[in-house]
């Protein structure tokens, strides 16, 4: 265990972006202090450490704040060298970053629309999401995880879909049908969630579904932005 009282993580229990950082910290065996934020009443520390976006997660290492979960992942990988999560080869790193950006920008956008919208717009978003899932499914052909035999940066980046996509579906009443249509992706979801570091670091499912149901009722006026 790499003991480090100097590592603090500001988070919120239901946030996938926060869990993503926790998975990375745990994979590396880094000890940290976790601070739960009430996002409807943000602490002065959070606002001081992340004045631009005012969001979680924020990693504070030796009093230096790092924000944006994918940026935090790269920082963790470069600072603590054991159990590397990014590949060494520049081309493989570019591919890993490509998929991370793809799920964080594109898949998240369509999932958000499928979650919040109704009728035709909802249907269109689900269709778009399925096109995206197909691409992810093809990328997994012949591989256990996106990063190969072991989970890595790409798996941690896509990881929110393994748990929170199902939560969103249940809370908002839609189905992306990956278990039927995308066997590689469906298999990856199960394998990813079975990994000890992941399995022991997920929010309670029922409570999360309830949270997202309430979240949907608040509608698009939500202030809970997570990176």
């Amino acid at each position, binding site marked *: 265990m790499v003991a480090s009282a100097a590592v603090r993580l500001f988070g919120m229990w239901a946030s996938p972006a926060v869990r993503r950082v926790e998975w990375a910290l745990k994979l590396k065996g880094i000890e940290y202090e976790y601070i739960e934020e009430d996002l409807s009443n943000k602490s002065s520390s959070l606002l001081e450490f992340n004045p*631009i976006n005012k969001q979680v997660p924020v990693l504070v*290492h030796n009093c*230096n704040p*790092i*924000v*944006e979960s994918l*940026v*935090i992942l*790269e*920082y963790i990988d*470069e*600072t603590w060298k054991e159990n590397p999560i990014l590949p060494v080869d*520049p*081309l493989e*790193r*570019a591919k890993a*970053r*490509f998929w991370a*950006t*793809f799920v964080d920008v594109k898949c998240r956008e369509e999932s958000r629309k499928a979650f919040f919208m109704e009728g035709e717009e909802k249907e269109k978003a689900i269709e778009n999401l399925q096109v995206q899932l197909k*691409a992810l499914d093809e990328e997994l052909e012949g591989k256990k995880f996106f990063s190969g035999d072991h989970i890595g940066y790409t798996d941690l980046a896509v990881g929110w879909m393994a748990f929170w996509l199902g939560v969103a579906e249940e809370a908002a009443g839609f189905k992306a049908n990956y278990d039927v249509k995308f066997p590689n992706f469906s298999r990856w979801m199960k394998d990813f969630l079975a990994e000890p570091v992941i399995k022991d670091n997920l929010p309670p499912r029922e409570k999360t579904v309830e949270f997202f149901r309430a979240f949907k009722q608040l509608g698009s006026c939500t202030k809970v932005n997570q990176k």
Partner: protein
Amino acid sequence: MASEKGVMLLDFWVSPFGQRARIALAEKGVEYEYKEENLRDKSELLLKSNPIHKKIPVLIHDGKPICESLIIVQYIDETWSDKAPLLPSDPYQRAQARFWADFVDKKVFECGGKLWKLKGEEQEAAKTEMIEILQILEAQLGDKKYFGGDIFGFVDVAFVPFTSWFYSYETCANFSVEEVAPKIVKWAKRCMERESVEKTLPDPKKVYEFVRYLKKRFGIE
């Protein structure tokens, strides 16, 4: 595609995202073949190289495609690492650079687009937003020579292509970048003293002509 040796860039002349890649390649002294794409009739090569997004820029290195401009710039930095490092070596400074490049990515282009696409109150709101974005960036730059400090770096590469759009933003939305963010304007001039930037960025008046062409095409007065 064939595993041809060498570097090719699929791009579009006015794209600030493509210009990031061109500036990075020039800083590193990398020779490459430039291929101008017709975005209304995309080439087979582009569609095969970037099947997911079908967008430029795409860097093709020894037959392997790399997509997304900031990912391309990092790839260039990591592959040709012997010269002109764009990211600092310290992990915390690197995280700062990535954050600010991501900030530019998320904020500048989209808000800029609103300035020429919208009118009336919506345009005013976009102008207020753009001024705020420029002032945040100005505060981050401070009195440094570049965003990277003394070294022209990742954030400079990410942001400098948008400086040739300032004239368009100002003309469409009626404000002055120099008035709201004078340090940014001085920084832009310093960047233009670099050959990589000077040879890559188009004349702002040509960018404005392009914006006017887009407005006509989309039926925006």
